[in-house]
């Protein structure tokens, strides 16, 4: 039996908007992440991926539900446990331009975690920063430079070094490559994979690029309007998607191979993603779903295991 590093049960995160409405960014999401694996989360913009990642990392207070990290509920930790959690779980961000404080040097940025957790000081700390720079493929001379002097890929590596500085066990990667060029994406993905192998890291990998998620993840969950609608091992999900939304999503990615691309059948969904302010009743996908029936409007489909380890939320599967 593999150990579950992170368990999320019935997670809800609702934002109360200044206009008075309630935005259900994440609505009743349950999943777990095994130690040492990479769980991919995909879905369209605004479906609540980042909110899930941040809630799991304890950045937001959560509206409802339970997040357990290494057996401890993150909302009822004592001060020492909270500090340890802040160290064990790290985060890498999407935008390499806004996720680094523009007024801090690379050395200060990477060293910040070391300072916060009082791990090292003086020469030892500098040596460690050099080590980290080397680990992510930057050179020593970069230590006194400012973030704006780096390219997107280099900045993303600074962000990774910053997270690694405190020896984390778990990293939430929130679209770490979507702002980068194709050629640079591969650098970052390879780095993340190498680091995972070297330090036995566990990743929650959020992205909307399905092919990269397919490459890096062991299991993948698909979100739609605040809900998980399908989750399975990567192979299973991509070869045998069951939810009509997952099917459409996978079919919509153009394949970078003209012959295969020609042969492929794309499922075109009608309409746009509804606003998360007024999610349709019943199945959130029903107004765009090619196989929706009356029944779909009646109740929210349960997120059930259909075959071994393959969970789907659709009454017509």
């Amino acid at each position, binding site marked *: 039996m593999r150990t579950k590093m992170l368990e999320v049960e019935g997670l809800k995160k609702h934002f109360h908007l200044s206009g008075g409405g309630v935005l259900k960014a994440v609505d009743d999401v349950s999943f777990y992440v095994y130690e040492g694996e990479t769980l991919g989360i995909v879905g369209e913009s605004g479906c609540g991926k980042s909110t899930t990642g941040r809630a799991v990392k304890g950045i937001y207070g959560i509206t409802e539900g339970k997040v357990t990290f290494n057996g401890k509920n993150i909302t009822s930790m004592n001060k020492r446990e909270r500090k340890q959690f802040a160290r064990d779980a790290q985060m890498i961000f999407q935008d390499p331009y806004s996720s680094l404080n523009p007024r801090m040097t690379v050395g200060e940025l990477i060293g910040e975690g070391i300072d916060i957790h009082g791990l090292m000081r003086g020469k030892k700390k500098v040596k460690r920063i050099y080590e980290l720079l080397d680990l992510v493929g930057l050179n020593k001379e970069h230590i006194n430079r400012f973030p704006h002097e780096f390219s997107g890929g280099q900045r993303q590596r600074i962000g990774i070094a910053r997270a690694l500085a405190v020896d984390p066990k778990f990293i939430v990667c929130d679209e770490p490559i979507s702002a980068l060029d*194709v050629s640079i994406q591969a650098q970052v993905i390879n780095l993340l994979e190498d680091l995972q192998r070297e330090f036995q890291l566990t990743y929650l990998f959020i992205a909307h690029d399905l092919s990269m998620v397919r490459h890096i993840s062991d299991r993948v969950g698909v979100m739609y309007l605040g809900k998980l609608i399908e989750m399975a091992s990567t192979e299973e999900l991509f070869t045998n998607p069951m939810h009509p939304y997952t099917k459409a999503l996978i079919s919509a990615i153009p394949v970078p191979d003209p012959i295969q691309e020609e042969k492929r059948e794309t499922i075109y969904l009608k309409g746009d993603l509804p606003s998360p302010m007024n999610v349709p009743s019943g199945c959130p996908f029903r107004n765009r779903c090619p196989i929706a029936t009356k029944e779909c409007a009646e109740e929210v489909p349960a997120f059930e295991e259909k075959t071994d380890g393959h969970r789907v939320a659709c009454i017509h599967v």
Partner: protein
Amino acid sequence: MENENKKVLEVEDLRISFDTYAGEVQAIRGISFDVKEGEVVAIVGESGSGKSVTSQGIMKLLPTPPARYKSGAIRLEGKDITGYNRKQMEKLKGSKMAMIFQDPMTSLNPTMKVGRQIAEGLKKHTNLSKDKIHSRVIELLTMVGIPDPDDRANRYPHEFSGGMRQRVMIAIALACEPKLLIADEPTTALDVTIQAQILKLMDKLNEETGTSIILITHDLGVVAKMADRIIVMYAGKPVETGNKHDIFYNPKHPYTWGLLGALPRVDTDKKEPLKSISGTPPDLISPPKGCAFANRCEHAMEVCLEHDPAMQEYGEGHTAACWLHHPNAKEYLDQIMEKHSFGVGGEKYANQNAGG
């Protein structure tokens, strides 16, 4: 591809620089290409390689200064438009060529109803009556797949979703049936399911109205789906051009190899590490003397550092600029071609006509 088609656009040795405090940024260092009638030409390349500057340069959208046209000629349907001023361009825009951008919100007027924005071009460039214009607006909105166009025409851009705004942009661009549509990353800001809809729409327009399209993107999947011809740019210059099959199955330039190698492979079960291109592109303030890709190129030779390789033809319409294909480098090229297959699609296509 229908051959012997009329050329809609010809660009010849276009060079554009920006004068900045740090020096002259040589954003475009010589690009030549043409677009035939009904053709979709895709421009791909790293961020900062000059894709947007090329397209904005053609449309005369760059503020001068800091931009400066250093050389080159642009011909639209055979007519030289290089020296056109703002007013003359204004006439061409909309009627002959149109452009859509990545972020539709920046180019839509937030205070004007969508229907009126579409009608503007028609008023300017045609002498249709009011009723005719209105029915054309509705027709356009229907064509780009906006549901309930009569109602939607009277709404403001902020009441539209991102995908719908992009459709409106396309409707505006197509109002006067331009010969050429330049689309700068039209779907980058959109979700894949919406992207699929927009690409289908552009494809349909290209087929039905024969509008030529220059499609700028960094998504090689989109290129594989849409393009007839592909221009791969690096550091302000094209490094390889060719049709889909040339570029994807028989690429010649190491940068193209790198781009294709960096994509996760879905056709093999084996989980191999991605091939990454390390390093960063050169600073265009002081571009290198030799090949701009040399500092990141696995196969770089001494000559690459000293001389800039010229474009060579390797088959009809398939050109690349790389010293590896020089006769003096044949031994080394044969060696690496034996070991690797550089296109996508695995062994099938490897060595199909290696060496050109």
